């Protein structure tokens, strides 16, 4: 930075202030500042460019291949044929596993978040361990969740259930929809906890104090005052968890997904077909990639519409919650 001598920055007696301002501006223009600011701006643009390229490429190529027939047909064994194939079982399978997951993950995640914000003391070691565990759970690779699902849910819980219920053949001790959903529930637990916690913190403490002062117990305050206020945040958490889980393939590889099934999954112990896994199969195992390309793009577009619609809703709700949080200081 240049230093100025007094004669430069003290206004001369007869000089007009406009000239001074102009000089000041001119001196402030610094090529390197401009250059590096531009560079970071370009980095931002580049990332947005990548996003736009991926989305446009998929939308342009996928739109023409999507039809009502495509999303409502159960394909025959050879699902690489562009004319007869459909993705109904995959849509049903993905939705089914995500819904079952939500039933498990939302209560556990919300209750944990309530404990962390309403009950736990912020300095206790246990709270810090819980937080560390949540952070760690968020960082565990998705394929490790798959191994966990196989080792714990299928080989341990499932096998023991079969023994207890005296099933001669494996009913629960094999890949099944319930195990895939539970694996995903463990994986998305941190998402729900973090989002719920954020929204619980955004509720003004005065509200709780008022309720307590009127004689409500802590539990009543949480159930009747805090939770209704936090509902948008809890919904965001659920939606983000669903959109994350809907696109994940690695955790379900060994825990429930099927390459092909002739019928829709009807029972929790059934295997299922899945959109993400189907994309993987279509793009790596197709006998003729040029012929499968349109249906591949269409399948990707269906999955993206599912996850993106959810994501955008979540982002909008979250932006509102954050604004509220900021207003509180």
């Amino acid at each position, binding site marked *: 930075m240049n230093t100025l001598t007094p004669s430069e920055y003290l206004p001369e007696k007869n000089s007009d202030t406009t000239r001074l301002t102009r000089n000041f501006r001119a001196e402030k223009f610094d090529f390197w500042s401009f250059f590096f600011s531009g560079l970071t701006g370009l980095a931002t643009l580049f990332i947005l460019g990548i996003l736009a390229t991926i989305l446009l490429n998929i939308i342009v190529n996928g739109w023409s291949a999507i039809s009502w027939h495509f999303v409502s047909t159960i394909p025959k064994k050879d699902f690489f044929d562009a004319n007869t194939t459909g993705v109904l079982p995959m849509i049903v399978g993905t939705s089914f596993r995500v819904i079952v997951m939500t039933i498990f993950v939302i209560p556990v995640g919300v209750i944990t978040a309530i404990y962390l914000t309403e009950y736990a003391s912020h300095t206790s070691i246990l709270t810090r361990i819980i937080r560390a*565990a949540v952070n760690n759970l968020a960082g565990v690779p998705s394929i490790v969740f798959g191994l966990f699902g196989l080792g714990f849910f299928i080989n341990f819980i499932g096998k023991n259930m079969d023994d207890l219920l005296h099933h001669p053949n494996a009913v629960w001790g094999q890949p099944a929809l319930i195990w895939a959903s539970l694996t995903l529930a463990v994986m998305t637990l941190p998402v729900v906890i973090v989002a719920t916690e954020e929204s619980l913190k955004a509720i003004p403490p005065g509200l709780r104090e008022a309720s307590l002062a009127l004689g409500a117990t802590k539990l009543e305050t949480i159930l009747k005052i805090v939770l209704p206020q936090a509902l948008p945040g809890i919904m965001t958490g659920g939606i983000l968890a669903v959109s994350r889980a809907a696109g994940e393939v690695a955790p379900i590889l060994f825990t429930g997904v099927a390459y092909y099934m002739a019928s829709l999954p009807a029972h929790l112990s059934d295997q299922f077909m899945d959109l993400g896994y189907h994309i993987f199969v279509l793009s790596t195992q197709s006998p003729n990639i040029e012929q499968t390309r349109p249906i591949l793009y269409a399948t990707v577009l269906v999955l993206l519409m599912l996850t993106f619609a959810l994501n955008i809703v979540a982002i909008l709700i979250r932006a509102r919650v954050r604004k509220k949080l900021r207003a509180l200081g």
Partner: protein
Amino acid sequence: MGIHRGHKARPGEWLAEKFIFLVSLSAILMVLLIFLFVAREALPVFFGQTNTALVQKPIPPDEMDKHTAAELEAYLEITPDQLAKLPKSTLRTMMDIKVEAQNDIPEDFRNDPDAHINTTEWKYLVAPHRWNDYEKPEYIWQPVGQIKKFNIIPLVVGTLKVTLIGLLFAVPLAVGAAIYVSQLARPRVREFLKPAIELLSGIPSVVVGFFALLVMATTLQSIFHYQTRLNAFVAGLALGFAVIPVIFSIAEDALTSVPRAYTQAALALGASRWQTAWQIVLPAALPGVFAAAVLGFGRAIGETMIVLMVCSASVMSWSVFDSARSITTTIAAEMAEAVSGGPHYRILFMLGALLFAATFVSNMIGDFVIHRFKNKLEGKR
């Protein structure tokens, strides 16, 4: 509390509180269970209880009682439970089959020195070995065929190669964008940019993998003219796409949490916006930015589908334009064909445990650094 609140006991309230507390321990429980059950399936490898030697000294079924339970488990490749549950006659049949299998091994394999070694010993897992048909000691991962080779070094190299390419690509871009969004952009632009970049994390990794396979691979090959169409370079770049939102949001958060007094003081002293960002805010937020890179690393080595779709051959090579097979890919691709409870299955679980340990450590470092950083900014020790 000093206030006399209730005039009646509230057992319901008390129970609910305990219940909430117990449920909140589920996160800890899950981390422990993941560790336990992934490690449990891998334990025999750590303790050297698996044996893949093709030619083994057969135990005659009549001498079954002379051997200890542990020896029989290793010999028959079964778990202690199974050994306890199976009736004697079934065990006998299994041992007969084992002896027959030994007799069926072709003569030329009997003379192969490789057929006599247990390839799941640690020295074969990590050190190069000169296999029968090879001229020099080599690192080989080849879990199929008569003699199964389980050297994990090519997988580790493949993982690091792809991850480093991804990070070299993602870190500068994401940190640059974070600086721009948090320091230089107008508030209104920022409101739009932040969610837009975070939207990138909403693209499922299987879709990024698909895009890399169908579009990027061909485009990049026509630009750089390399030999193998699907290689570590393409996989690394695609991996970068998946990691950018992670690094961006943590780095942006760190940069934003630098107190505004710093920025205002610098600007008041005549520094330009860029000078403030580069010389004041970035150094203050450096631990946070470092943590972002570490957490990005953890995310990158754990990414499965992208690398699985883009490249798969396990070649021992540091070259960027060769194929690479990462640890995650190996688990995903081979678990289906591995016999449950067999050596291959166990080694795949061991790889999973390694991966878990690696991400656990990188998460711990990242969180620790962020925690310290936030405390320091708030003036706590």
